Structure formats: structure tokens, C-alpha cells
């Protein structure tokens, strides 16, 4: 093979690879849409308050849509905080997350502490819901406490 012939072949291969990569990515697109935040509501000091995944008013809801398998991982905060740094302990355990259909039927229970493989299909939307437990103590001061949960959705490569 001459250098000219080889160069032409490599250029052709390279050009051929671009459209196929673009096709693969567009077919595998995933979207995340937060629908509802996790809200513990009004709490008293020295109490333990759990929000279950079945608590439609207070659980967090995120809509996921796309195709194929995705790995869902959460970066969970250990506390809710006021702007001045006062804290309420947060706890999450297995069963504090679930996958639902948009009609509310449970597809499966998830462990928010683990990476969960979820199968998305035909661009249909599924709902990822999250609960948790807030633990106040006798020294917890009145105020508004907040935190953010990061949701990482990774679609494995082919």
C-alpha cells in the first residue's frame, strides 16, 4: 500500500466513524427533570422525621427519560444547613429511593447509597423518587434548613 492509498483509507475510516458516533449519542440521550424537592416540612427539636418514598407530598421526584440502561448514583448530603451553618443530620438507607411509572406504579425499590442500574425504554419517562430521615436534637434552633442532592446519571458506553 502506498502512502497515498493508506492515507485515503484512513481518512475514509475516520470520516465513517463520525456519523456513527453521532448516531449512537443521539439515540442514547437521557434527560433529568426535577419535579419536586424533598421537603421535611415543619419539624420540632429533638425529633426524628422520616419521609417515605410513598409520601407523595414530601418525597423528591425526578423525571428520567431516554433509552437503554443507565446507572443512577446520588451524592447525598449528611445534613441540612442554615446560612449560618447550623445543621440537622440527614440519613438515607436502602429503600429510601424507588422508581415509579408516571402513573405512580412502583417499578422497583432502589438503594440511594448504591449505584442503581435502571433500564429506560422507548423514551418513556420514569420517576425517580427519594425519601430520607431528618434528625433534630434538643439544641436545634428554629430556622430554614436546606441541602442539595446531586443526581448523576451515567449511560454506559457501547
Amino acid at each position, binding site marked *: 500500500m502506498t*502512502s497515498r492509498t493508506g492515507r485515503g483509507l484512513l*481518512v475514509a475510516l475516520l470520516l465513517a466513524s463520525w456519523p456513527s458516533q453521532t448516531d449512537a449519542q443521539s439515540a442514547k440521550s437521557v434527560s433529568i427533570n426535577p419535579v419536586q424537592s424533598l421537603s421535611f416540612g415543619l*419539624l420540632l427539636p429533638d425529633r426524628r422525621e422520616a419521609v417515605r418514598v410513598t409520601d407523595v407530598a414530601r418525597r423528591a421526584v425526578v423525571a428520567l427519560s431516554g433509552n437503554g440502561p443507565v446507572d443512577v448514583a446520588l451524592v447525598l448530603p449528611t445534613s441540612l444547613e442554615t446560612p449560618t451553618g447550623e445543621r440537622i443530620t440527614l440519613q438515607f438507607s436502602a429503600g429510601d429511593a424507588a422508581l415509579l411509572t408516571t402513573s405512580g406504579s412502583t417499578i422497583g425499590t432502589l438503594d440511594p447509597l448504591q449505584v442503581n442500574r435502571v433500564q429506560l425504554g422507548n423514551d418513556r419517562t420514569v420517576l425517580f423518587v427519594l425519601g430520607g430521615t*431528618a434528625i433534630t436534637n434538643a439544641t436545634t*434552633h428554629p430556622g430554614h434548613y436546606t*441541602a442539595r442532592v446531586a443526581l448523576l*446519571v451515567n449511560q*454506559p458506553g*457501547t
Partner: protein
Amino acid sequence: MNRSLRLIAALGMLALPAAAQAQSITGSIAASADIATVFSFGAPSPLNFGSIVPGTAAAGSGYIPLSRNVGVIYSLPDGATTGQLSGPGPAITPSYTCGVGSTSTTIVSAFSSCNGTTSVLTLSSPTGTLTEYVIFNGSLTAAQTNTVPGTYSGTIRVTATAN
């Protein structure tokens, strides 16, 4: 292979791993809670001088608990008539010591006055929820009890304002 060919080959090698690269997206969920203010009086224990033999001194003690997790300003809205006793004879004004204690028996922080019209004690926010007791200790002199027989009663009104 010349230099340009090697460059194209290198680009091609870079492109192939990219085609198999995983796709990642990130979302965020807000979480929140509100801690309630605790600020409420409990059931009072009346100050009762009991049945008094006319012409003898008498004493009594009463309290009302307050649970709170914020600061407080105490005041006595009735001022000079706070705890004044009315009955069949002339009104009787006992002399009082008053203030706040961590138990119902001992005053730790005294009010600046037991019949003042302005705020009589300000306490800061505690480290946690606590229950403290507003205590009034009253006393009657022998001269005050030497009066018309009958039941004498009154009210000690205490206002607590969250601070």
C-alpha cells in the same frame, strides 16, 4: 508512512475510544426542613395563701412554666395591680418576689419589678429547648389579713414575648 499519515492515524485512534465513551448527565434535588419555634406556657400552679387567721402573716407561692427555644422578654401588663386581691373588704396588695427559675421552687433570674409596666426581664435564646418557671412568691402581713372575712382573689398576668 509519512508525517501527515501518522497524524491522521493518531486522530483515528482518538476517535475510536470516543465512540465508546459513556454519557453522563447531572441533576440536582433540593431538600429542606423548617424548625419550629417552641414558645408556650404550660399549666399554672396557683398561688394560694390558704385559710388565714385574721391578724396573722401568710405566704404563698405559684408558678407557670414556659417552654421555649428562642429568647424571651417578660412583662407584667397589669403593672401596679399585678396580683392584687379583691374580696368583700378593701383590696389587698401582697408583696411579691418574682422571677424565673429552672425549677418551680427557686428564682434564678429575678424580675426587675413585680409590678412594673415595662419589660421586667429579658433572657437570650437558649442552646436548646428548655422549660423554665415564672415564679411569684407572695406574702401578707398580719395587718393586711386583719380585714373583713371572705375570699379574696386576683390574677397575676405575665406576658412573654419571643425575642
